């Protein structure tokens, strides 16, 4: 775990589909960083999140000041995708040769794919594209792990654990626990801690 930011501001995009817990993931991660003494700005697009659209949170982390709630194009340092093709969409707009990307491999089909009008790319193709557009790319079966824990929604927490496992931000399990104990019912804390640990291990052991 590092105490310093690799860059100031450090720019994180968390992306997914409405209902995947994108907003909660960005809040939890940001609250951890605020507890570490950083200035954090989150920009969110969730007005249409209930209706199957893409959801995206831009997180700017700085030791010094407030930054724009929108990251400049090509300016992401870390992309966390709760859905694989959303990773590609975000990399196309905010990626650059130094970006790190974490991808939950569970696909959620857009309505055009369901109707047979569009084709969803194979996992292999997605992996190739994400790897080609990232300095580091990690693929995590976050939803599968969450289903094993008894609730697919925990996929977002597995991914936050994976962020901790990368070691690029000053966050750890202890800090995560202190943040979720403030905002969550006691019964929900334990599965969240397990999800975080699974995600952390999935990236850290590599």
């Amino acid at each position, binding site marked *: 775990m590092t105490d310093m930011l690799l860059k100031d501001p450090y720019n994180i995009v968390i992306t997914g589909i409405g209902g995947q817990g994108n907003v909660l993931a960005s809040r939890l991660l940001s609250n951890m960083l605020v507890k570490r003494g950083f200035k954090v700005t989150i920009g969110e697009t969730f007005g249409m999140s209930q209706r199957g659209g893409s959801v995206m949170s831009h997180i700017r982390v700085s030791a010094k000041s407030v930054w724009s709630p*929108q990251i400049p194009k090509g300016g992401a340092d870390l992309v966390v995708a709760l859905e694989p093709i959303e990773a590609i969409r975000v990399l196309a707009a905010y990626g650059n040769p130094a970006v790190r990307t974490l991808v939950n491999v569970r696909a959620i089909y857009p309505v*055009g794919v*369901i109707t047979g009008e569009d084709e969803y790319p194979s996992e292999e193709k997605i992996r190739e594209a994400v790897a080609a557009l990232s300095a580091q790319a990690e693929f995590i079966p976050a939803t599968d792990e969450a289903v094993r824990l008894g609730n697919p929604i925990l996929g977002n927490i597995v991914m936050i654990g994976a962020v901790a496992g990368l070691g690029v931000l000053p966050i750890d399990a202890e800090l995560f626990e202190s943040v979720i104990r403030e905002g969550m019912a006691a019964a929900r804390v334990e599965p969240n801690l397990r999800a975080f640990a699974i995600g952390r291990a999935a990236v850290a052991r590599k």
Partner: protein
Amino acid sequence: MPLDRKQREGDEVLLMGNEAIARGALEAGIRVAVAYPGTPSSEIIETLSRFAETGKLYVEWSSNEKVALEVAAAGSFAGLRSLCVMKQNGVNVASDFLLHLGGSGTRAGLVLVSCDDPGALSSVNEGESRHFARLMEIPLLEPADFTEAKEIARWAFELSEAIHNVVMVRSVTRMSHASGNVVLGALPDRPVKAAFVCDGPVSDPDTGPVISTPVVAKHRLQQEKLRRAASLFEESPFNRYEGPESPELLIVTSSACLLYSREAVTILNAQNRVGILKLGTTFPLPQELIARHLRTADKILIVEEVLPFLEEQIKILVAERAGELGIKTFFGKNDSAIPMVGELNPDLVAAAVGRILKIDPPTVPAEYAEKVRELSAIAPKREQTFCPGCPHRASFWGIREALMRDGRNGFVCGDIGCYAMASLFPATGYHISRTMHSMGSATGLASGFGKFKPFGMEQPAIAVCGDSTFYHAAIPALINAVHQNSEMVFIVLDNGGTAMTGFQSHPGLDVNAMGEKVPLVDIAALCASMGVPVSTGDPFDLAGTRETLNRLMEEPGVKVLILKQACALAPEKKGKKKYKVSVDEALCRGDACGCNRICTRIFRCPGLLWNRKKKKAEVDEVICAGCGFCAKICPAGAIRCEEAAKP
């Protein structure tokens, strides 16, 4: 985590802009907080409802924005600091009262917060509410970050009391829905007793009747209040300059555009060439302050979203003081340096500054951009759609079948809510709404269409509206249609709450924003009291909806149909499936014989997948909400529903 009662003065917490505004109002000691929900404003009142307490803080979801402002004004007249919140087009609804309120003046602090939505991220308009401040002659404040959102919301009440008039605070989606660090201030705990003192002379603003007459005298007084606000604005800490003493280019900006401008200057590494004058008080302008800064630069770029509100005021200022300020070159909306439509971001501002200073903004390496072009094409687009199990999809399917059977080329007038999606994607089956305007407008339009038979118009008109929209604005139009003996079917898509904005209460429910049990106003009973036939149905009963609707379309006059089924995301439904739905592959005809994949291609429920290899439909059990409606549309009867096991 979210703003709550546990946090203390001095705590540094991450707050959403809307929470910061709510906190500022609490720190100002508000007693009344009222709104009609609308994205991106709803979280302000939602946050405050967690602080509601009888006799200490009254919180209300009103039936519409005009009523909300009236309730809040009553608070002010009774000596209670009051907050009223709405989205940008809500100000249009409240504007008639606002015009007269500005004339009458106020007592205890009264603040109107409008959250605009540049780029229409969750609106069907790009309404610009700042112009209302100018039109209604009331002061306007615009916060540019999260700390300031709290501070401006707090100070706005002091300003309102200093000038005895309502003060407007304007946020935008990227402020209201963004989050940042905020240090909490103290919450005052002064006891208060409400009373409306109104037995004094007309001329006394503190004891007389609160009216906008005599008009000319009151109008003159209102303008004096504005001049007083302008003089306070000259010294306001919400107006700040950052940059060199004599910048080559002076940016004048407000709101989230400050953050975009600052970042643009950083991107271009032009901190020594560009100065930024950030205004938190944007009407009336602090003219002396602005003139001082205009003197330092010849090139002026005005960075703002939607209409050229600052730009026009500053150009007038420069024209009036031409002798003193000299010739300026302006960049902004008028010369298209800044786009006139859509929201801004750091890149758009960097492009504008870059063009003026002849600096090329940095881009990703060409090789990377080439890879993006090549590889990103594999990502299929993601359209919005009705949720799995959404009763609106079923309602529109039933309406579509009834219209097809009716055969007179009838149409649906659409309205505002999730069901507005029925006016998108016109190529596919049940997306049959053919008009979409403001809340309640479907009913007014259908009231008109239903009178044009003497001109040869034979198409039947159907108006739809949601339950919250019914109370908000459909009732006057419905009364009109009944009284004018128009011919129309009026359908209420009743999903049991203000679903699109997060299930806020409305007058059809027996609980209010305080969590208290309250009387409800029944839609069917209210419609029946107008003397028109009222039918009710369940949208998931396809045959029933179709039969009822076809019968109603044959009858003269106004007919009401209430299609009642809770939203698929309603707390009582979430995660509970009525049916276990599956596809019998032996019966599914696929592409082969005539159904043309009606379930996936036309019905478009995210719970139904088209398996390209098998050429059969299948159910995605993770996504399917178990409503079972798709079983009714499959011509081959291949979709099976079994009662789901109770969890």
